[in-house]
């Protein structure tokens, strides 16, 4: 049942783009501006360059094992028991750091900025229900809806950039490289860890992509690049409007940016546009996470169907999203101290080891 469904490579590009934009667009600007100040855009560009290399690594891995998901690759490379244990640890931790954390960030944003009186659990449940619906209906359905909704997001995004561009002050980007190259590297790393490394999970759905013309890998790369360019533009504009200090201090600088739009005292309060872009991309990020996790669990335990797992996983998702971060200070320190090493392990070290292992095996076969 897992290999019957097919999505086109264009749909996969769109899914990758939305996945990359996902949590990056609203949270990244403040983190990266805190590290690199007005040079955040240089850091993000450096991150993009590193990201292209990382995605190429993922693509190479997918090319070496055509038609296999990440779990099946681990299975063939490490053997049944070790491979599945690694896969289970990977999936269990990803469930906490991925969808649960994203849902927590989302409901935090909603309760602090838009609906302060609504209890956090009810927002979580409402959002989780639509995510589960998407996962339950399957990848074909939510890819089609992504394809339908993507032009609207693009339109909203362009409208947003055009309206905000009345307020930019390019002098905020000066002086360039005030503190040399040193602060650039940590900022670039944090960008890569949010925008590119979690994309390893897309290897769980890459076998469902119609790969007759060898386009799946290219879709992964192009989607990642579009998503991160969108984010880089947002970072640059935020810093040009607010300057690095305010961007770093504010929790959701892009939301504050949308609030600032005022054309002739008439066109005002457009922050809902920003929030809509964010909700849609976060929705797809969470749906892809949950779909990949359910598929992975089904494959680890040799189940024929992934659907029975979806609703219980959803229940876990709702409760975990409240538990994962006890408070915002914990979240901030966890995001730098643990999220970065964690994504480095799953998105960089793990695929690198897998590539080395398969290279080693090929050598053995030849010799």
């Amino acid at each position: 049942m897992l290999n019957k469904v097919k999505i086109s490579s264009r749909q996969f590009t769109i899914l990758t783009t939305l996945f990359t934009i996902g949590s990056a667009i609203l949270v990244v600007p403040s983190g990266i501006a805190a590290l690199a100040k007005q040079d955040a855009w240089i850091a993000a560009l450096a991150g993009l360059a590193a990201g292209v290399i990382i995605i190429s690594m993922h693509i190479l891995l997918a090319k070496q094992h055509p038609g296999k998901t990440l779990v099946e690759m681990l299975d063939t490379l490490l053997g049944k028991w070790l491979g599945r244990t690694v896969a289970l640890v990977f999936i269990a931790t990803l469930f906490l750091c991925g969808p649960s954390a994203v849902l927590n960030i989302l409901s935090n944003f909603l309760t602090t900025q838009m609906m302060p009186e609504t209890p956090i659990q009810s927002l979580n449940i409402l959002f989780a229900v639509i995510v589960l619906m998407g996962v339950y209906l399957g990848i074909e359905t939510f890819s089609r809806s992504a394809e339908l909704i993507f032009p609207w997001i693009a339109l909203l995004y362009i409208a947003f950039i055009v309206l905000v561009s009345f307020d930019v002050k390019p002098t905020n980007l000066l002086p360039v490289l005030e503190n040399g190259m040193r602060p650039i590297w940590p900022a670039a790393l944090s960008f890569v860890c949010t925008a590119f490394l979690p994309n390893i999970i897309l290897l769980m759905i890459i076998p469902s992509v119609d790969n007759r013309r060898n386009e799946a890998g290219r879709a992964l790369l192009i989607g990642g690049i579009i998503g991160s360019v969108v984010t880089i533009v947002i970072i640059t504009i935020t810093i040009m409007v607010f300057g690095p200090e305010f961007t770093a201090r504010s929790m959701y600088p892009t939301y504050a940016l949308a609030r600032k739009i005022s054309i002739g005292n008439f066109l005002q309060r457009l922050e809902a546009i920003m929030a809509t872009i964010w909700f849609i991309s976060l929705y797809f990020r969470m749906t892809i996470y949950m779909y990949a996790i359910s598929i992975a669990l089904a494959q680890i335990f040799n189940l024929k169907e992934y659907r029975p797992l979806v609703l219980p996983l959803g229940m876990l998702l709702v409760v975990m999203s409240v538990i994962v971060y006890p408070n915002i200070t914990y979240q901030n320190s966890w995001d730098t101290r643990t999220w970065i090493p964690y994504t480095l392990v799953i998105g960089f070290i793990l695929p690198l080891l897998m590539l080395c292992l398969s290279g080693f095996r090929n050598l053995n076969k030849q010799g």
Partner: protein
Amino acid sequence: MLGVAGIIAAAGVIILLQVPVLRKKKLKKELWAFWILLLLGVGISISKSILLNIPTPMSWIAIALKPFSDFLIHIGLIK
């Protein structure tokens, strides 16, 4: 108490939606996986609604990755 009742009701709805289908298709392993995940979910939800403060599982990941994270701090890549 209302919270606990809500959790059990939600679990009941999930069971009603899934179990008859699984029984009909005779998917035994899937049924087991379903029950284990559901019990885990219900257990954690109920303890969350009664105890209020539950230690976050994120700290286990943090402990496991502490050496690596210390190394990255040492070479100046994270703060």
